[in-house]
């Protein structure tokens, strides 16, 4: 077991006695591996692992993302391989709500419970669904935008990418809420940020090149698009002048919030998602009754509440504590 720990980088269990009992391997499969968001999720999963070990269970989590971050095939392959490998359970953030359905069902058929996290999967055969209510998150951002603009103005939405369910729900939640404020017009909501910060940056620059001077507010639905939009707004010197509501948190975004360059961020709780995901999987392995859905909640972070301890814990999850400072 020790070998696997080293290879997967999940860290060692500090001070725990050698756990006994049957070996329980839980595969945790994110959509990607290179965002703070997934790091937090990983830390949450590691926390659940450590607690289980402390409770004397011989639990290991295997952290494995697809190599290419937008590649459904790669993720399908990962799920299928874990099925062949006969892990005890899987915790999966599906890249696609349909494409992953059959591999997941095959795993369930092979007796491997699968807990879906982060984004939904169009299948009844899942152990549980642990996620943010994305539409609610979008609506929260919309309400805040209406408030910030006093119900009047012109706004721009830079979408994330085609076919990404979670961000589409956020965009929908946001736009539906905005419709309730007749004073607000959406000047553009049909351009996409693309997969990386740089694609988002270019896209934002170009869209702002056309509408930059005429708008009062901007909404972006995830980390990379928010980062890219911030850079583009900085270029045209509009940061702090117009109202900017983003999604997700990472170091620079919180700094920007504190500097009042961003007026609000909708923050999810990936740490909790990872933690709950693994715990739910453990329950499922033990054949306990698990809830069909678990909402890990969204929080609106603003320059005013960013100092709160509760918010602070949300935006600075104890990654180092659980993954080791590397």
């Amino acid at each position, binding site marked *: 077991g020790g070998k696997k720990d080293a290879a*997967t980088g999940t860290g060692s269990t500090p001070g725990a006695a050698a756990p006994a009992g049957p070996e329980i391997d839980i595969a945790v499969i994110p959509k990607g*591996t290179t965002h703070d968001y997934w790091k937090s999720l990983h830390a949450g999963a590691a926390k659940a692992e450590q607690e289980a070990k402390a409770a004397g269970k011989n639990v290991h989590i295997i952290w494995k993302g697809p190599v290419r971050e937008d590649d*459904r095939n790669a993720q399908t392959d990962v799920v299928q391989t874990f099925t062949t490998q006969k892990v005890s359970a899987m915790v999966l953030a599906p890249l696609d709500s349909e494409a992953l359905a059959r591999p997941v069902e095959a795993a369930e058929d092979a007796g491997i419970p699968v807990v879906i996290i982060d984004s939904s999967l169009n299948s009844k055969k899942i152990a549980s669904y642990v996620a943010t209510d994305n539409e609610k998150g979008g609506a929260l951002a919309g309400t805040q935008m209406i408030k910030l603009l006093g119900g009047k103005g012109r706004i721009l939405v830079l979408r994330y990418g085609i076919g990404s369910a979670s961000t589409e729900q956020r965009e929908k939640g946001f736009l539906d809420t905005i419709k309730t404020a007749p004073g607000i017009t959406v000047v553009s909501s049909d351009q996409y940020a693309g997969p990386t910060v740089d694609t988002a940056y270019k896209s934002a620059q170009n869209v702002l090149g056309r509408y930059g001077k005429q708008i009062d507010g901007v909404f972006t639905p995830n980390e990379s698009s928010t980062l890219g939009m911030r850079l583009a707004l900085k270029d045209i010197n509009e940061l702090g002048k117009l109202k900017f509501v983003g999604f997700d948190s990472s170091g620079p975004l919180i700094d920007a919030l504190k500097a009042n360059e961003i007026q609000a961020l909708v923050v999810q709780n990936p740490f909790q998602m990872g933690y709950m995901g693994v715990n739910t999987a453990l329950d499922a392995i033990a054949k306990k009754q698990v809830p069909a859905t678990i909402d890990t909640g969204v929080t609106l972070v603003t320059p005013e509440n960013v100092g709160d301890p509760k918010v602070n814990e949300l935006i600075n999850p104890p990654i180092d504590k659980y993954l080791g400072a590397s």
Partner: protein
Amino acid sequence: MTTVQSDPPMQAKAAPSSPGARVQQIMKSLGPFIGLFLVVVLFSIQPGVGKTFLSFDNFQLVLSQTVIVAIGALGMTMIIISSGIDLSVGSVVALTGVAAAVLMKDHHMPAIVGLLAAVILGGIVGAINGGLIVALRVTPFIVTLGTLEVARGVAKWIGNENAVYAPHSWIDQLTQNTAPGGVSAAVWIVIALAILVHLMLKFTVFGRSIFAIGSNEVASRLSGLRVDALKISIYALAGLFFGLSGIMQFARLSGMGDPTIAQGEELDVIAAVVIGGGSLSGGEGSILGSLIGALIMALLRNGSQLMGWPSYIQEIIIGVVIVVAVALDRIRHRSAGKA
């Protein structure tokens, strides 16, 4: 002038090949197997993982994961032998999958129509590629870089920027492990097609012409080969395979046509062909080699995951193996070939 009869040693010479050449031949076709063997051994000897790796379940899995790239590699092998390249594979896979889904969902066509339409659409895109290459005299790299973008755009367009979910049909079953031998029907389809293409390349005028224009286009033209028509046919025929690959992708996604699928797949397909002994300067390549190339890549991915290596290690290893496999092939060539 001597007459033919007066020359007994001729008969000996007319035998398939000299012993030296035969050894060379064997070495050449054995080549990619060495890489395959090394990869299999590498993972088999790992304690804890070896057994899973060598299990029948895992074997089924790797085969089913190889299918899409393998079908693409069949078409790409022909193109690469003809000294061309096609970067649009990934986009064509997406486009044809979406097209099938749209036909089946929005136009309520039976599955067979969706399948045929996808394959034919692939062929049409291929014919357009070939036609542009011939008509504009622009290098295949650029023409297909263009179609890469265009086909992707069209896929998004007809899919209305969204994944299209077709009703379930027997197509979905193609990639399920329900066929004889415990593998999927797709695997048998790949094997059957591979044999056909192999025979075509070896024993037909068309196949010979593909090798000829790939080795020396000018000399082929001046020998009366219809180089332009041949090129269009090659790309069109390969396009049919890419369309079929799109259908397999569609099946693997349980009947979903996804316009964003298979991005960058062209590099996997090309790598498979080249690992299998294909030369990008044309005139060389083999179907068996390309299939093994595709299998090597799938086994590497599968094995590294079983090992629990993080994805970056996997990337590094795949990169190294691509280079090493091709380098081995070159060394073999040199030792077997010219002194």
